[in-house]
C-alpha cells in the first residue's frame, strides 16, 4: 500500500464522521435495509461489502438523500441530521459516484459537472477549476468535450471531479471498478488513498473481495438487508470474506478445461463488420472467431466496447453485411433474423432481462412461446398451442427451480435472479446447437449463478457451442475454455483460459490491440 502523501495533522476528532443507527427501508415485497448500523471514521477508507441485492445501494442512497429511510438516525460529525435531498447531502460535504453513472450523454463535461454543483454561481471559472482539480489528482479531463464521446473510465473521472470540486468530507463510491481495466483500477486506488490521506473519508462499495483487501481499512458486511459482520479486510482471506458475505461455505468451482474438440466448429464469424445503429454505439470491426461443439468461449471487455452490438449481430437483430459473415454448422446465416436463426439452432439471450430478454407484462408461458415456438413446436397452423406452451414453461420452472407462482405469473413479478434462471432455462431446454448469452449472471445471487453455470456446462457437454459475453472476468475465467477480449469493437484472437494472464487481458481490455493474447508464452 502507498505511504500517505504528507498527511495534514488535524486535531484528532472525537466523534466519528458518520454514524448510522437502525436504518430501515422497506420496498413493496422486500425489506432492503433491516436495522442497519454503520460507522465511518475520519480519514478512513471503509468498505461496504455484500452481494447484489444485499441492500448496499439502498443504504448509500439514503446517506446521499436520494431515498428517505423509514426509521433510524443519521449522525454527521457528532450532530443528528436529516438528509432530505442530495443538495443537502452535498452541503454537508457528502459526494457520491454512482454505479450507473448519473451523466447526461448529450451534454459536455463542464455542463455535467455544473449540474452536480449546489450553487450555479460556481460556474464562473468552472473550466479552470475542472482543469486544476483534474491535474492535481491525475484525472485528465477536457471540460469542453461531449460525454457521449468519452470512454467509461473518463466518465467516471467526471463524477469524481464533480465530487472533488465541492471539497467533500465523505466520498461514496458505488462499485467503481466494475467498468475499469485492472490498470485503471490501480490508478483509481492511488487517487483514493491520496484523498483519504488529505482528510476525505471514503465509503467504498463493492463485492470484489481482493480490491477491498487491498484498499480498505475497515469493512461492514451486509447480507439480505442486514449487517452480518464488521472486520478488518486485510486480516481476512478473500475466501473468509466471501463466506461472511454469503454466509454459506463456498465450494470451489471450476468448470473450464473440458477436453478439446476436434470436430468442425459450429459457429464461425468471418470478418464481421457492422455499423452500430445507436447514436453512442460502437461499430464492430473485422471480427473473426470460431466456436467448436462442446466449447464455451468467453468474451471479456469493459462495458460499451461493442458488446451490445456483438450480441445483436449474433442474435440476428442487426443483420450482417453479407450472409457469409456468420456461419452456423456451415450454413450462411449472416442475413437471417432472430427467428430464422433460432429455427436453425442458434439461440441468444440479451443482457437486459426486462424489456429485451423478456416482455415484462407478459406471463412466463407467453415469454416461453416467444422464443421457443418453433423449436418447441408450440404452435400449429399459426395458432398457439396453449397446453404445450404451459407445459413448456412449467418444465423450465421445474428444471431450473424458478421461484414463482407458476407459468401464468407475469415476467416482471419475478426477482432478477429468478427471471434470469427462467430465461436461460427457456433457451437451454430448446437444446440449441449454438447458444449466445450476455451477462448471464448479472444481478443474480450466488446460488442461482451456480445453477446457471451447471446448466451451461451440461449443455456444452451435450455438444452445444456456447458464447458468453460478460464483463465479469472471474466468471469467464471460471466457466470458459477459451477467452477473447472485445475492445473498441474489435475482438482479440481467443486463447485458452489456462494460458491467459490477467495482465495481458487487462492490457487488451484497455485497447492495446497489438499485444494479442495469442502471443503470450504458455
Amino acid at each position: 500500500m502507498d505511504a500517505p502523501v504528507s498527511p495534514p495533522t488535524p486535531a484528532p476528532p472525537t466523534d466519528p464522521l458518520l454514524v448510522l443507527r437502525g436504518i430501515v427501508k422497506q420496498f413493496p415485497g422486500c425489506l432492503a435495509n433491516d436495522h442497519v448500523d454503520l460507522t465511518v471514521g475520519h480519514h478512513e477508507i471503509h468498505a461496504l461489502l455484500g452481494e447484489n441485492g444485499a441492500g448496499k445501494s439502498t443504504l448509500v442512497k439514503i446517506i446521499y438523500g436520494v431515498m428517505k429511510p423509514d426509521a433510524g438516525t443519521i449522525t454527521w460529525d457528532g450532530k443528528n441530521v436529516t438528509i432530505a435531498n442530495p443538495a443537502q447531502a452535498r452541503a454537508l460535504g457528502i459526494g457520491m459516484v454512482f454505479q450507473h453513472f448519473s451523466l447526461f450523454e448529450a451534454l459536455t463535461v463542464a455542463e455535467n459537472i455544473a449540474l452536480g454543483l449546489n450553487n450555479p454561481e460556481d460556474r464562473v471559472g468552472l473550466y479552470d477549476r475542472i482543469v486544476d482539480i483534474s491535474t492535481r489528482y491525475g484525472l485528465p479531463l477536457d471540460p469542453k468535450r461531449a460525454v457521449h464521446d468519452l470512454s467509461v473510465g473518463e466518465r467516471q473521472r467526471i463524477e469524481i471531479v464533480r465530487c472533488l470540486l465541492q471539497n467533500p468530507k465523505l466520498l461514496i463510491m458505488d462499485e467503481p471498478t466494475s467498468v475499469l481495466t485492472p490498470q485503471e483500477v490501480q490508478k483509481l486506488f492511488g487517487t483514493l488513498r491520496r484523498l483519504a490521506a488529505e482528510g476525505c473519508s471514503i465509503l467504498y462499495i463493492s463485492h470484489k473481495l481482493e480490491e477491498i483487501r487491498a484498499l480498505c481499512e475497515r469493512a461492514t458486511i451486509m447480507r439480505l438487508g442486514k449487517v452480518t459482520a464488521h472486520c478488518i479486510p486485510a486480516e481476512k482471506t478473500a475466501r473468509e470474506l466471501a463466506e461472511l458475505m454469503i454466509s454459506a461455505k463456498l465450494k470451489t468451482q471450476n468448470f473450464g478445461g473440458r477436453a478439446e474438440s476436434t470436430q468442425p466448429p459450429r459457429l464461425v464469424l468471418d470478418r464481421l463488420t457492422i455499423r452500430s445503429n445507436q447514436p453512442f454505439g460502437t461499430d464492430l470491426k473485422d471480427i473473426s472467431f470460431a466456436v467448436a461443439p462442446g466449447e464455451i468461449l468467453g468474451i471479456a471487455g469493459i462495458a460499451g466496447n461493442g458488446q451490445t452490438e456483438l450480441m445483436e449481430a449474433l442474435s440476428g437483430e442487426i443483420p450482417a453485411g453479407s450472409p457469409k459473415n456468420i456461419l452456423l454448422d456451415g450454413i450462411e446465416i449472416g442475413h437471417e433474423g432472430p427467428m430464422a436463426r433460432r429455427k436453425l439452432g442458434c439461440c441468444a439471450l440479451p443482457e437486459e432481462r426486462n424489456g429485451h430478454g423478456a416482455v415484462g407484462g407478459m406471463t412466463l408461458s407467453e415469454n416461453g412461446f416467444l422464443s421457443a415456438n418453433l423449436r418447441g413446436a408450440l404452435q400449429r397452423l399459426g395458432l398457439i398451442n396453449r397446453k404445450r406452451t404451459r407445459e413448456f414453461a412449467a418444465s423450465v420452472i421445474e428444471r431450473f427451480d424458478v421461484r414463482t407462482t407458476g407459468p401464468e405469473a407475469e415476467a416482471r413479478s419475478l426477482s432478477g435472479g429468478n427471471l434470469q434462471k427462467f430465461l436461460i432455462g427457456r433457451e437451454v431446454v430448446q437444446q440449441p446447437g449454438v447458444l449466445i448469452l450476455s451477462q448471464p449472471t448479472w444481478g443474480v445471487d450466488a446460488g442461482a449463478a451456480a445453477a446457471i453455470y451447471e446448466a451451461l456446462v451440461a449443455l456444452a457437454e451435450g455438444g452445444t457451442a456456447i458464447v458468453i459475453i460478460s464483463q465479469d472476468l472471474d466468471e469467464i475465467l471460471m466457466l470458459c475454455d477459451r477467452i477473447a477480449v472485445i475492445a473498441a469493437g474489435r475482438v482479440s484472437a481467443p486463447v485458452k483460459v489456462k494460458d491467459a494472464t490477467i495482465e495481458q487481458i487487462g492490457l487488451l481490455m484497455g485497447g492495446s490491440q497489438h499485444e494479442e493474447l495469442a502471443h503470450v508464452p504458455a
Partner: protein
Amino acid sequence: MDLFYATSFVLSIISASTPLLLAASGELITEKSGVLNLGVEGMMLIGAIAGFATAHDTGSALLGVLAAAGAGIIISLIFAVLTQTFLANQIAAGLALTIFGHGFAALLGAGYVGIAAPTLPKLAFPLLSKIPFFGPVLFDQNILIYFSFAILIAISWFLRKTHAGLILRAVGDNHDAAHAMGYSVLKIRYGAIAFGGAMAGIAGAYLSLYYSPLWSQDLASGRGWIALALVVFSAWRPYWLLAGAYLFGGITYLSLYMQGLGVPIPSPLISALPYFGTIIVLVLISRDRRRTRLNQPACLGKSFHAVV
C-alpha cells in the same frame, strides 16, 4: 413583381407562419424536458375560444391573449397531472387532449359563432414604419409577431446559456440521473408542460383575434400538428424551428396564391402541398437515424417514476 406585391407576399408569409412558430416554441420547451404532448391542436383551440370570448366580453384583445395563455396552461395541466402524476401514456393522453380540446372549444364557442371581437393592435414604430418594404414588414406588425421572435430568441438563450436551461435539458436527456442529483423532475416537467400550454393558447388567440378574426371550430385546421412536426424537423434547435415555421408558412401561402391564380393543378392537391412538404422534409431530415437520435431528448415520451 413590384414592391407592393413583394411586401404583401412577405407579410402574408409572416402572418401564416407566426401561429406555427408560437405553438412550436412552446412544444420545443415541453419536449426538451422529455415530455411529448400531442395535444397542441386541442390547446390551440381552447386558447382560441378563451381569447375570443374574453376579448368580446371585455372589449380588450390584450386581455384575450392573457386569457388564452391561462386557458392553455389549465388545459395542459390536465395533461401534466395525467402523465406526470398518474403516469398515463403520453401519446394516448396527448391525443385525448386534442379530441377533448376540439369538442370543448366548440361547446364554449357555440354562442360566439358569426360575431366579431376586437382584434389585436398593431405596433407601428414611428418613422421606421414608413420605410418602403422594410417598414411594413419589420416595424408595423401585430404585437404577437414581435412576441414570437422575442420568445424564440429568449428560448434559444435560455437553453444554451442559463443554468435553468441546462437543468431542463438534463431532465430531458436522463431523468434518472437528474433525479439522483436532486433535481425535481416532476416540477420541471410540470413547468415545461405549462409553458407549452401557454404558448399553444397564445397561438390560438393569434388565430381567433388576428389571423381570421372570427370564431369557428375549425380555426386551428391542423396547425397544431404541423407545429409538432416542426419541432422534430428542426431537430429540437430553436433557429431551425424558425426556418421550418417560415418554410411551411411560405408553402401554405404559396398554395393559396396558386389557387387564386388558377394554376391548372387540382385544388385539393395544392391544399395538400404543405403537408406533402412536411412529409418530404421529415423523411429527408430523418434519413440519418443516428443524427436524429443524438439531437432528440433521450427521455422523450418516457414516464418517470421516482423511488423514494
